């Protein structure tokens, strides 16, 4: 993936989140691509987890990803169907959505940049399962064809 031109992953760790900057949930946050420090895709912002502060005002505590997070936002039949499939298909990890603490988000721009601890890139059990069960077994899986 190519690194971003302007904010976000461009300046690596330094966060571009300043007090006072405002965002639209639909435009700037939900369904945006989440990338790690090197600009590699991690997941999409399927939903955000909120908690209440001392004045009762909600603030964002975590970024949620995966079918369990996406299901409620599909609405209607497809929501219940996807949630049901996800519960039965969830490989380990107890069926809840994958969660990334919002404190790790260092950049909100064309993409959301997160500062993930090394090796935690496998946010989804599905990616790991497919890598170990199918792809890794094929010859040449380790080398990028470019």
């Amino acid at each position, binding site marked *: 993936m190519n690194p971003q031109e302007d904010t976000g992953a461009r300046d690596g760790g330094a966060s571009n989140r300043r007090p006072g900057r405002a965002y639209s949930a639909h435009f700037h946050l939900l369904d945006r691509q989440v990338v790690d420090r090197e600009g590699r895709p991690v997941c999409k912002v399927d939903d955000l987890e909120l908690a209440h502060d001392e004045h009762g005002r909600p603030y964002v505590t975590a970024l949620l990803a995966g079918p369990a997070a996406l299901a409620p936002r599909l*609405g*209607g*039949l*497809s929501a219940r169907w996807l949630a049901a499939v996800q519960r039965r298909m969830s490989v380990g990890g107890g069926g809840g959505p994958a969660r990334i603490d919002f404190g790790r988000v260092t950049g909100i721009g064309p993409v959301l940049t997160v500062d993930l601890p090394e090796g935690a890139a496998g946010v989804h059990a599905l990616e790991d399962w497919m890598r170990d069960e199918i792809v890794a077994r094929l010859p040449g899986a380790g080398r990028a064809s470019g």
Partner: protein
Amino acid sequence: MTVRGRRVAAVAALLVLVPAAGCAGPSRTGEDYRNKAASTAGAAASAVNTALIGVRAAGDGRVTGPYVSVLLGDAETDLLAVQQTFESRQPPDEASDAVRERLGKALGKAADALAAVRIAARRGEVRELPETGRDLPAAAERLERLEKEMSS
């Protein structure tokens, strides 16, 4: 179900139903049967003319063996398919019987001519194809005449 959900289901149903609408429907009146006969003659003429162009090019040494045998094989398959569909159609009245009889004969002759050139091509007798396919021009004209007559 939300409004959007119902709309999505409707589109999905439409996508499934559509191919089914494409199969051959029954012909009710004599006139409808004549139209079907005309389009059958047209499709058959198209297959014979394809073979005719291929055979003439073979005579001038312009085509490779494998290519012309596939061309003639495809043309024959198309003709047999059209012939089979037409003959399986029930003629609604006596007048249609005459139509079926004349077109049936023309289709039969065309099928024989096409089979002859396809067999020769598959044996590699490419240069002799114009000779083997000498009945093709007549078969093509007969079908085109029938097509014009039945669609008027």
